[in-house]
């Protein structure tokens, strides 16, 4: 299983990747902004995307919208501190598959991954 991790925080990408490693996912690609995430998606066959909301270049919502516009149904999980109802609704309407609010632990992440792919 290959996962694209998009977050403008290098430390947060490391945290997420460490959590992925702990649940058996070791093949990961990193993107530091929304445009890098879209470029990485187009260049690499990934099985899932974990994206932050607030990022430079393009934010997570724009990333989701643009990827869905290609016709891709790849699981996309928004990993963010933004958890208000209006924001969750906006994310779902854009095509997000699920939502993971920070802070999260490896069990929280595992539960989200298990919904979409076999790890």
């Amino acid at each position, binding site marked *: 299983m290959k996962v694209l991790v998009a977050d403008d925080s290098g430390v947060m990408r490391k945290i997420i990747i*460490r959590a992925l490693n702990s649940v058996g996912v070791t093949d990961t690609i990193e993107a530091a902004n929304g445009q890098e995430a879209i470029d990485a998606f187009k260049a690499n066959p990934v099985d899932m995307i974990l994206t932050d909301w607030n990022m430079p270049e393009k934010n997570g919502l724009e990333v989701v919208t643009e990827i869905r516009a290609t016709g891709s149904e790849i699981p996309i999980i928004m990993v963010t501190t933004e958890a208000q109802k209006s924001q969750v609704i906006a994310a779902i309407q854009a095509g997000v598959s699920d939502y993971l609010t920070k802070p999260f632990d490896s069990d929280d992440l595992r539960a989200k991954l298990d919904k979409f792919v076999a790890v």
Partner: protein
Amino acid sequence: MSTAVVLDPNASKNRTVHPFVGTFASCTEKVFSTMLGWDIVLADQTQSRGFLSKYDVSGIIGFSGGLRGTLVVSCSAEMTYSAAESFLGARPTDITDDVVDLVGELTNMIGGSSKDRLGIAGIELGLPAVVSGIGHRVSFQPSAHVEILHFLCDAGPFTVEIGFRLPSAAK
């Protein structure tokens, strides 16, 4: 390099603690527990006036909309090195970009998770900023109501300060 916390013995400890305090305290504990795997202890709660502690790194994030205020998370440089070491594989010896990034993210998560649990609609969170400087202090405006949470962990003491304008309904 770090400065020990010194509480002014003359500072008044208002026994009436604002209800927000519990939310920020529990969210801080959850952030440290889930993201760092650290157990932390809330050792004391005080209000402003006479607070003398100085720290090396502070994460700062603002609230607006339903609640106007600022959250400040302050700790020693050594504590940030301990936190960063678990992610970087090596212990930093200076306040690097990764250390700043980590403090900003922890502050963002404490602020973000707290705002959703305060029971106040329409709170917006700003972007986190990080101040680094040995022995600096962060001060609030005199008009702000300030609650200071003093935490302890194996890596040392740190504080979470919340300065805000009391919503008229909550006064």
